[in-house]
Structures are given as C-alpha cells and as structure tokens.
C-alpha cells in the first residue's frame, strides 16, 4: 500500500492537525509515514496544506507534485490541486464557497458538505474530523478505524482525550457523506 495524500484549505480549518492524526494512524498501522507541512507565514485565514504519505515500504520524496488523494477545503486549494490528482485518483472537496467545480472525468470526485455535517454534530471544532471520515471511507478503510482511534489518542494531549468520542462521531458522520 502506498497513499500519497495532500490536504489543503484555510489556516484554522485544522488541516495540519488532520494530517497529523492521519500520520499517527499510519504509525499505529505499522506504515512508513511522512508529514510535510507548508510551513510559513500561513495563519488563520491564509492557505495551509500538508502532504501525508503512508506506505508499506521506505518513502523517498516527502514532497510531491501528483497525489493519489487530494482533499481541498476551499476554492484556491481546489483550483491548485485538482489538476494534480493522478488519473484514477480521488478528489474530495467541501462544497462550501465553491463556485468553480472540478470537471475532470478521469478521477473519482466526492463533493461533501462537511460544514453542514459539522453543524449537525454541534461542535465546529470537529470539522476536520468530519473531513477525515470522508477521507477514510474514500480510502476504503485501508487504515482500520481502530488504528485511527489509536492515532487520535497518540496525537491528542491527554487532557483532550475526553473529546475522542466526539471525534469518533465526527468521523462516522463524515463517512456517511460519501
């Protein structure tokens, strides 16, 4: 298994921490893992992205130009990364604020209304885990849920472990969007 994934959106949407939880889930699943952030002056409101690679074998470049899966959470990210999905690959995007939809026919496209789903759960902080749920389902659970939960526990500080049930719920909700 090798999944080359980029998650891109606004700073403050939880893009980097979603990548981190994904990376930790890979770690718990005994995969080789890299997590490469677009570190920079990005802050709340700016753009942020993170490349996560999960693999059964040694990973060469942590920086890529083509991805198996692109998760785009705003128009800029969609415009930038939709053309970079490998043919046959997967594109997940949040429909909120999107006026130009992707038109490629050689990839699987999953539009999700993650914001709406998050509001239904009633905690806006769970947004990135709703997106995570959609991503995990699109990956056909190549990362088993039990290892994702272990990954969540690893990446969250102990004092936030009480939020794990909420995160689980958000992941389930996200998966139901596909």
């Amino acid at each position: 298994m090798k999944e080359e994934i980029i998650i891109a959106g606004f700073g403050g949407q939880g893009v980097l921490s979603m990548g981190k939880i994904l990376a930790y889930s890979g770690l718990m699943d005994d995969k080789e893992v890299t997590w490469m952030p677009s570190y920079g002056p990005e802050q709340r409101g700016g753009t942020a992205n993170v490349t996560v690679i999960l693999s059964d074998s040694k990973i060469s470049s942590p920086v890529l130009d083509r991805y198996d899966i692109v998760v785009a959470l705003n128009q800029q990210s969609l415009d930038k990364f939709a053309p970079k999905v490998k043919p046959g690959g997967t594109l997940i995007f949040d429909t909120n604020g999107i006026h130009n939809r992707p038109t490629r026919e050689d990839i699987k496209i999953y539009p999700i209304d993650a914001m709406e789903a998050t509001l239904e759960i009633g905690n806006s902080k769970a947004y990135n885990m709703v997106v995570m749920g959609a991503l995990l389902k699109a990956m056909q659970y190549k990362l088993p849920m039990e290892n994702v939960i272990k990954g969540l526990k690893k990446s969250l500080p102990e004092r936030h472990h009480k939020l794990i049930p909420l995160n689980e719920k958000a992941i389930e909700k996200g998966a139901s969007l596909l």
Partner: protein
Amino acid sequence: MKEEIRLMKGNEAIAHAAIRYGCDGYFGYPITPQSEVLETLEELMPWETTGMVVLQAESEVAAINMVYGGAATGKCVMTSSSSPGVSLKQEGISYIAAASLPALILNVMRGGPGLGTIQPSQADYFQATKGGGHGDYHLIVLAPSTVQEMVDFVGLGFDLMFKYTNPVMILADGIVGQMMEKVQLPEQRPRRTEEEIRKQCPWAADGRKDGRKRNVITSLELESSKMEVINHQLQARYREIEKNETRWEEIGVEDADYLIVAFGTIARISDKARELAAEEGIKVGIVRPITLWPFPTEAVNKAARGKKGVLVVELNAGQMIEDVRLAVHDNLPVEHFGRLGGIIPSPEEVVTALKEKIINK
C-alpha cells in the same frame, strides 16, 4: 529495552537526541525554521533529569561564545540556528576550530541571502564546507536526509567532535527540520562524570584540580613560526578526517546511465525522480554525500565512470556542483539544477531538468 517508535519533527528529534546522547549544554537563540529545537528542550526540561543546561542566549553571537566556553572545559555542548543566525556565529566557529575544541552546530537552512525567507534552502553549502569564518579551517559537515538521521547525526557528531577535537556541523534544510517522520531514539547515554571528562579531555580548562600543568586555550599566536606549526597540525588532522570519515550513500548507481548527485532531502526528491525516470526507461543512479566535508570525491568519481552525464540537484544556484566537477575528471557533462529562495522542486521537475540539461542536449 527497545525504544518505541515515535512520530516527530526533525527539529524536535534534535532536541530529544541531544538529551539522549548525554549533552551537557545547549545554547541557542530562536529563528524559523528551527525554533522547535529550543522550544522542545525547554518543554522537556532536561535540567531536572540529566542535568543538561538549556539556555536561551541574548543573541546568536552570545550563544556560540557560550559554546566556545563550555567546549573549553571539555563539556559536550551545542548550538542551533538557521542561515542568518549561523552567519552571526561564524567568528565564534572559526575561534572554536582554531582552538581545536569539540562543538556541535546545527544549521537548518532557509532561503537567503540576507534575512531572506523562512522556506527551505541549501544555499549555505559554501559557508559550511569552505570556511564561513576566516582562516584555514574545516568543520566536519553532516547532511541528514531523514528525521532518523537528525537523531543519529547528533550522536555521530558528538563522537566525531571529541575524537578529532574539531567542531562538527549538521547542515539540514528546512524540510527535514519541519517534516514529521518515524524515529527511534537511542537509550539514554549518561552524561560523563567530571572524572571521565578529565580523562577524555586532558586539554580542558577545568580548574587544575589535580595539580597538573596549566591548560591554556586560545586561538591567538603572534609568533608566525608557531602559528604555522598550529596550522600544519590542523591540516594534518583534516587529512586524517578525510581518510577516515568520508560518508555517502549510493542508490542504483551500477546499472545507471545517468547520475544525480544531491544531499539532504533533495536526495530523496531525486530518488523519487529516479523512480519516475525508470518508468520511462531512463536509468538513473544517485550518490548522496552524507559528509559534505570531507566530500566523497572518490565515490563520486567512481560512480560517474561510464555514465552519460551527471546532474547535481541542489536548493541553491550551484554550490556542491563545484566539488562534483572536481571529482569527475572525465569529459562528462556535469550540469546543475536548483530552485532558489525557498522553492522546493518536485520530482517531476528534476526529471524534466535531467532531460533538458543532459539527455536531450
């Protein structure tokens, strides 16, 4: 007991490794993209466990001079910074090299010149390998390409700096500083006792506790004939280091038609480019210098033999290529590809560069 595998940023890994390898003191000053080194050390509070000193100095200049002082007493000391900060440290580094003292300096390079950008770069190759400070001196320069190597090279760096009483630099790029990967930390190496330090460093200025002859540590020698002797001693040591410590990695060199030479994370981007090129039937091999000084001249020379061309890929305008050209004597095309100012090339760009600059030329 085997240490558990963890996920860490390169900068965090440096901090953990410093403690684990028995460092006595870290002196630093924050600068992106390596501020997590100091932050992580402050968070881990090693002064309460191993007794290691962690100090945020008032400036980079102060930090390197604290390292100079600590090293003079035989302690295992280090500092870290990024490009503009490392420029500030150069005077101190030259003094430490001249005084033949052990010290570890980490440079997590960012784009320059000047204050530049906070994005990754490899544009301090010249500074690290050819001097940086004044005078005829060399640092042992290690270039990590994985987070695990960030850990391992702290241990290796400490060993080498005491073995040769010579400063060692870990020359990393912002990518390996900022990315997270799996790491396995070493078991806790205890800090050396005062007695062990005296035994390992009989030259140390540690207070003449046993009535021994006075140890004087200085880089000043006004009598030229004596200064020449000191220089010859340094040069003899550098030849010794060249003989014993040259390190590199080769990937798929033997059956390749073309060679890429790259260091740090760029070697990994080039490795991916190698995979992509192979899909098109283009056979590429890679030499990754691990020690940038001493440079693996012979290894590059051997690897280049019989090849159709060499591409040197760097995050700069062409620095290591000078050492590659010196290594490759044959009439081979040796070309450079690099992105500048903090831009990271994709593996596809490297393949395109290989085609444009070498294959289709």
